[in-house]
C-alpha cells in the first residue's frame, strides 16, 4: 500500500513537472472516474460531541450534491470517523483514512488539539488538511504547513476587528479585557494589542484572566470596573460571558461592551444575563444565525432550510453548527469544481488557495471567501452587530481583520 502511494505521488510530481497542463497529473488516491473519497474525524462521542452534527450536516450536503450529479461527474464520498476529541485517536483514525481507506484528503476535522496532532503527519505526507474546524490562528501558517488551511475567521481576526472599531470610533477609550486563560482567550488579547500598536499600553488599562474551572467571574469584573475602564472586551465562553454582562450592569458600571462571537447566542448568553442588561453590546459576526428572524425570508437561509428538511430531517434547525457544516461543505464543492478533471493533491491544494470572492448563502451579505498561496485564512471579514434588546442589528461596513 505504502509503495503504491509513494509511486502515485512520485508519478504525480513527475507528470506535473513534465506536462505544462496540470490536467494530466495523476489523481490523488481515492479519486476514481465516479468518486472522490475524502475523510475527516469528528467528536461523535465524548465531551465535544455537540459538534458531531457538523459532520452529519456535511455528509447530508454531499448527499444532496451527489443526487444533483456530483462534482464534474464524480460523487463525493465522505468517510467521517469518531475520534472522541482525543488526539491519539485522531492520529489513529486519520492514518486509517489516509493509508487504509486511501482518501484524497482530510476535510474539516474538528478541534484544535486533534488538528495539531495530525498536522505534521499530513504535511510530511503531502496530504491536504483542508478547512480545519477550529478558530485557532495557528492553522493558516502557509510557510511551515503548506498543506493545512483553516476556514472560519480566527479569534485574532475578531480581536483585530474590535480594536479597529475602537480606534476609529472611540480613540480615547480606556479598555478593560476579560479573557479565558487558554489559546482562545490569548489569541484575542494578543490581536487586540497588536492592532492597537503603540497605543496599546496607554489604552488598555487592565487585563484580567479567568480559568474555565472557576465558578464565576464576578471578582474579575469588579477589578476591571475599579480600573476606570469605559470599554469592556469580553473574550469569554458562554457561561462566563453571561456572568460578565450581568455583573457589569448590576454594579452600575455600564461600559461599552465588545462580546466575542463565540458567545453571541441570544438564548445561551444574553437571556441568562438579562436581555435588558445587554442592550448596546457589540459583537462581530460572519454567518447568518438560523434563529434570527431577520433571515426569515432570506433566499440563502431558505435554501438551507429546504436542505435541512429534505436531507437532514432529524437535524436541529436552531443549531448553527448545521449552518456551519453547510457553508464549509459548499466551499469544498467550489474547490473541487475549480479542479476540473485534475484531482491530484497538489491541484486540490492549489485550488483551495485560489478562491476568489466566493460568496455563500449562509454568510452575511458582503462577506467573501478569498484565499491565495500566501493567505490560508479563507474568511477574514466580519461585520459588527449591536444588540437592541431583542436581536442583533448589523451596522457599519464589513471589516477585515
Amino acid at each position, binding site marked *: *500500500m*505504502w509503495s503504491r502511494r509513494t509511486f502515485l505521488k512520485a508519478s504525480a510530481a513527475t507528470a506535473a513537472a513534465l506536462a505544462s497542463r496540470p490536467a494530466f497529473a495523476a489523481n490523488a488516491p481515492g479519486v476514481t472516474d465516479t468518486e472522490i473519497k475524502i475523510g475527516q474525524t469528528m467528536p*461523535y*462521542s*465524548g*465531551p465535544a460531541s455537540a459538534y*458531531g452534527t457538523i*459532520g*452529519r450536516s456535511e*455528509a*447530508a450536503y454531499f*448527499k444532496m450534491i451527489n443526487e444533483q450529479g456530483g462534482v464534474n461527474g464524480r460523487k463525493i464520498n465522505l468517510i*467521517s*470517523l*469518531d475520534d*472522541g*476529541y*482525543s*488526539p*491519539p485517536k485522531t*492520529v*489513529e483514525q486519520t*492514518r*486509517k483514512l*489516509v*493509508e*487504509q481507506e486511501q482518501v484524497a484528503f482530510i476535510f474539516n476535522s474538528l*478541534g*484544535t*488539539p486533534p488538528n*495539531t*496532532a495530525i498536522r*505534521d*503527519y499530513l504535511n510530511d505526507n503531502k496530504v491536504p488538511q483542508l478547512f480545519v474546524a477550529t478558530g485557532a490562528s495557528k492553522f493558516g501558517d502557509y510557510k511551515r504547513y503548506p498543506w493545512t488551511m483553516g476556514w472560519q475567521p480566527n479569534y485574532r481576526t475578531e480581536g483585530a476587528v474590535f480594536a479597529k472599531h475602537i480606534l476609529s470610533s472611540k480613540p480615547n477609550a480606556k479598555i478593560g479585557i476579560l479573557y479565558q*486563560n*487558554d*489559546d482562545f482567550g490569548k489569541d484575542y488579547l494578543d490581536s487586540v494589542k497588536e492592532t492597537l500598536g503603540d497605543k496599546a499600553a496607554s489604552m488598555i488599562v487592565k487585563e484580567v*484572566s479567568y*480559568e474555565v*474551572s472557576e465558578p464565576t467571574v464576578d471578582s474579575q469584573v469588579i477589578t476591571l470596573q475599579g480600573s476606570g475602564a469605559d470599554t469592556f472586551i469580553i473574550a469569554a465562553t458562554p457561561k462566563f460571558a453571561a456572568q460578565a454582562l450581568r455583573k457589569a450592569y448590576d454594579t452600575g458600571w455600564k461600559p461599552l461592551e465588545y462580546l466575542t462571537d463565540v458567545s453571541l447566542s441570544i438564548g445561551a448568553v444574553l437571556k441568562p444575563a438579562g436581555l435588558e442588561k445587554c442592550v448596546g453590546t457589540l459583537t462581530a459576526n460572519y454567518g447568518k444565525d438560523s434563529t434570527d428572524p431577520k433571515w426569515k425570508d432570506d433566499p440563502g437561509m431558505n435554501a438551507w432550510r429546504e436542505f435541512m428538511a429534505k436531507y437532514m430531517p*432529524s437535524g436541529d434547525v436552531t443549531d448553527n453548527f448545521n449552518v456551519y457544516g453547510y457553508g464549509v461543505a459548499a466551499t469544498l464543492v467550489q474547490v473541487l469544481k475549480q479542479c476540473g478533471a485534475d484531482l491530484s493533491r497538489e491541484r486540490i491544494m492549489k485550488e483551495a488557495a485560489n478562491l476568489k470572492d466566493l460568496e455563500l448563502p449562509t454568510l452575511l451579505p458582503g462577506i467573501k471567501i478569498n484565499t491565495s498561496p500566501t493567505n490560508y485564512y479563507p474568511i477574514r471579514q466580519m461585520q459588527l452587530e449591536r444588540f437592541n434588546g431583542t436581536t442583533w442589528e448589523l451596522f457599519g461596513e464589513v471589516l477585515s481583520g
Partner: protein
Amino acid sequence: MLNLELASSAEATSGAGFNARRAAMVVLGLIVVGLPFGLSGFRVFQLSQVIIYAIALLGLNLLTGFNGQISLGHGAFFAIGGYSMAILSAKFGVSYWFAIPVAGFLCFGAGFLFGFPALRLGGLYLALATFALALAVPQLLKFKPFDPWTGGVQGLLLSKPAAPLGLPLTRDQWLYFLCLLGAALLFWFSSNLVKSRIGRAMIAIRDHPIAAETMGVDLALVKTTTFGLSAAYVGVAGALSGLTVGFVNPDSFGLFLSLSIVVGIVVGGLGSIWGMVVGALFIEFVPNYADQISDVLGEGAKALPWAIYGVLLILIMYAAPEGAAGAGRSLARHGRRFLPRRESPSRGT
C-alpha cells in the same frame, strides 16, 4: 479461586504440556516479530497502540487483579508518563532511552505516594478517590503556572524517533519494536513477580488481608509498593504512547482512558498476565468495529457506536464472566477431557 494463574502455569510446566507450550510460544514470538514487515504503517501503528495498552492493563491488573485495590484513575498516571516523556524530550532534549524509564520512575513515586491515602480507603471509596485523580490531572496539565513545561492547552509535539544504528526499519516499525521490547521486559518481570514471595503476599492481601497480616505480611508496604509499581507500568505505557502518537495534550488523557483501562482488565481477566493482550486488543479494536457496524445501520447512526460497544461488552461478560483468561482456562479444561492418556487430573480450583 485463590490463584488460578499459578495453578495453570504450574501444570503447564510439567511434562509434555511444557514442550507444546514452548513451541507455541516460539511460533507466536516469530509472528509478533514478523508482523510489522507484512503490514501497512497504519496497522503497525495500531499494533503499537495494542502493546502500549497491554502494558497499561498489566499495570492496573497488578493492582486490581492481584492486589484487590480498585483504581478508576490510572489514566492520570498514563498522562504523567506521557508528559514526562514529552517534557524531557521536547524541553530538555533527553533521549527516549532515558526518558521512558524516568517516566516509569516518576510514576512509581507518584503511585507510591498515592498509595498512602489509598491505605485508608477500601473498595468503592478507593474507586472514588482514584476517580478524582483522573478528573484532576487533565485540569492540572492546563494550569497556567505549569504552561512553560506542559504547553498548557496547546500540548507538546514530539518528534518520532528514527531507527538507531542504521537499522532498515521505518519509524512505525521501530516504534513497534521499542514498545515490544518494553512489553517483553515488563511482562517477564510481572510474571516472575506474581510467582514470588512478594506476589504471593499481594494475592494474600487481596484474598484475606487479616490472615495475610497475621502471617507477617507488611500490609502497608506491600499495598503502597504495588500501587507504585502499577503506576510505573502505566507511566511507561503513557511515555510510549506519547512517543508513538507524537503529541500530548490534556485532552489525550481524559476520563475515558481510565475507564478503558478498567474495561480492558476485566475483559482480559482479573489476575491474569497474558489475558491483558486480549484486553488490549479489545479496547483498541472493538470501538472501531462498533463504529463500522453502526455505519452499516445507515446514516444518523453515528450516535450508536457506543451503544453497540456496550452491547458487545455485556455479551462478552455474559459469555466469559472471568474474561479472556477465564474463558481460555475453561476451554483448556474441556479440551483436556477429550485427550487420551492424560494422567494427572486438573487441580480443583
